[in-house]
């Protein structure tokens, strides 16, 4: 059974590599029982979104709003 500490590490790795099936199952079982770690997972997702948002703000990437008027 994973500890919470191990679970946080595994959630982080899940952002960076594909977890093996057994690793996913183990993590899934832990998350099913542990609200703190489910919240941690939410926080990681917010963090990733924040990084994307901040980067796009600086680089001016506007994924859809690039209407070049005139063309076609």
């Amino acid at each position, binding site marked *: 059974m994973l*500890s*919470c*500490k*191990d679970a*946080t*590490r595994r959630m*982080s*790795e899940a*952002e*960076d*590599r594909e977890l093996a099936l057994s690793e996913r199952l183990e993590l899934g079982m832990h998350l099913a029982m542990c*609200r*703190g*770690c489910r*919240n*941690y997972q*939410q*926080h*990681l997702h*917010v*963090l*990733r*979104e*924040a*990084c*994307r*948002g*901040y*980067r796009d*703000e*600086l*680089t*001016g*990437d*506007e994924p859809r709003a*690039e209407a*070049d008027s005139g063309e076609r």
Partner: protein
Amino acid sequence: MSYHAPYPQPTGEPAIIDNAFVEQVRRDMLAFAQLQLRDAALAEDAVQDALTAALTGGQDFAGRSALKTWVFGILRHKIVDLIRQQSRTTPISAFGDDEDSMDQAFDRLFKENAHWQPAHRPAAWGDPEASLRDKHFWAVFDACLTHLPKNTARVFMMREFLELDTGEVCTAAGISTSNCHVILHRARSALRGCLEKSWFLAGERPC
């Protein structure tokens, strides 16, 4: 002081890419490069090179956003090149004093059996979407990012801002995959803790 304008002066037709625009892009690029490189002189070099390459390349830009996308694309490559060059001479270490104190702070969140201390168990963050639309949130986020130690920041930013895959990040940083995972986990934990303390729970906890 000899300052070469790094871009050709616009001629004739009304310039959509005027000096003011280039200056603003340059500021954004500098902020971007500084966040990743943590070295003002290196960041300045990277930006100058990228701007020069972009604006003397004779490309025809459909507009401002096309130009901005183009120069940032070049800047990303420059940043990774610089990190790669530096890590060849001074390999990025996963362990140092700053990293130690981050790990200790993280360890304090857990009991001896490695489960959460009740007082530190992560709580749900209310309405993160609203936070991401709040300009005050971005100031806090910037402060949290800036607070990361240099090596940790470089690895984390290559992964999350430049969106390199983990293998490319490890190679550029000259570190093993497992050290890479350690650093990324450490960075995320620190940023999570910083956002929680400085934003999501700031002023919310009733006594």
